[in-house]
C-alpha cells in the first residue's frame, strides 16, 4: 500500500524567546536577519510572534514569546526556550493532518485560523521523537 505524503514545504523555524522585540534586535544586528513583520499578538496561541529572514532566504525565522504567565508557552520557556518547532506550508491542511496521523503523528491542535498568518489556518502535531511541527495552509 502506498502512503500519501503530506506535501510539506518548509516555511519557518520557530524559536522561543522571552521577549520578541528584544530578541529580534540581536538576530538583526548580530546574524544579519531582516524583519519581515512587526510584533503580532495571537491570543489563540497565547503568543507574541515576529517573522525575520536572511536576505534572499525563503525560509523564515519566527520568534515566539508567551503573552503572559498563563501562556501555554511559559512552561517551555522556563525549560530553556530555543528552537521550538518547524513549520511547513501545505496546500490542503486537513489532508496533510490526516496524512501525518497515518505517519504516526499526534494532533495537538486541529486547524484553526491564526492572526500571524492573516487568518490562514494552522495546525500543530508531534511525533514520537517529540518533534513539534506546525502546518500552515497556503494562501
Amino acid at each position: 500500500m502506498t502512503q500519501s505524503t503530506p506535501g510539506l514545504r518548509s516555511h519557518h523555524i520557530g524559536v522561543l524567546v522571552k521577549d520578541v522585540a528584544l530578541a529580534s534586535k540581536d538576530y538583526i544586528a548580530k546574524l544579519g536577519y531582516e524583519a519581515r513583520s512587526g510584533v503580532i499578538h495571537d491570543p489563540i496561541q497565547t503568543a507574541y510572534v515576529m517573522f525575520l529572514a536572511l536576505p534572499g532566504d525563503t525560509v523564515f525565522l519566527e520568534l515566539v514569546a508567551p503573552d503572559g504567565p498563563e501562556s501555554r508557552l511559559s512552561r517551555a520557556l522556563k525549560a530553556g526556550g530555543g528552537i521550538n518547532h518547524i513549520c511547513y506550508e501545505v496546500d490542503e491542511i486537513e489532508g496533510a493532518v490526516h496524512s501525518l496521523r497515518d505517519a504516526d503523528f499526534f494532533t495537538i491542535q486541529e486547524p484553526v485560523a491564526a492572526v500571524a498568518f492573516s487568518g490562514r489556518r494552522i495546525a500543530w502535531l508531534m511525533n514520537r521523537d517529540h518533534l513539534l511541527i506546525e502546518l500552515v495552509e497556503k494562501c
Partner: protein
Amino acid sequence: MDRLKTIFEDVFERPDLEIENLTRSNCPEWDSLAHVKLMIAIEEEFNSKFTIEQVSNIKSVEELRTILNLGPVADPR
C-alpha cells in the same frame, strides 16, 4: 511502582505528584501539548496503541486506568 504515576511526574516535571483524581479540567498543566506527550510516553511504557478517538477523548487518570486495564492503586495506609 506505579508506572502511570511515574509518567505523569516526568511529563509534568513534578515529583510526588498525586494523580488519582487528576483530570484535564482540574490540572492546568495538562494542556494539549502535555496530553500528547503523555499519550506517547504511555504507549511506549505499556506497549499499547491508543485510537485517535481515545487520544481525543481521554480526560482523566481514571479513564486511562480503565483503558489500560489498570486497577486503582492500593491505599498504602
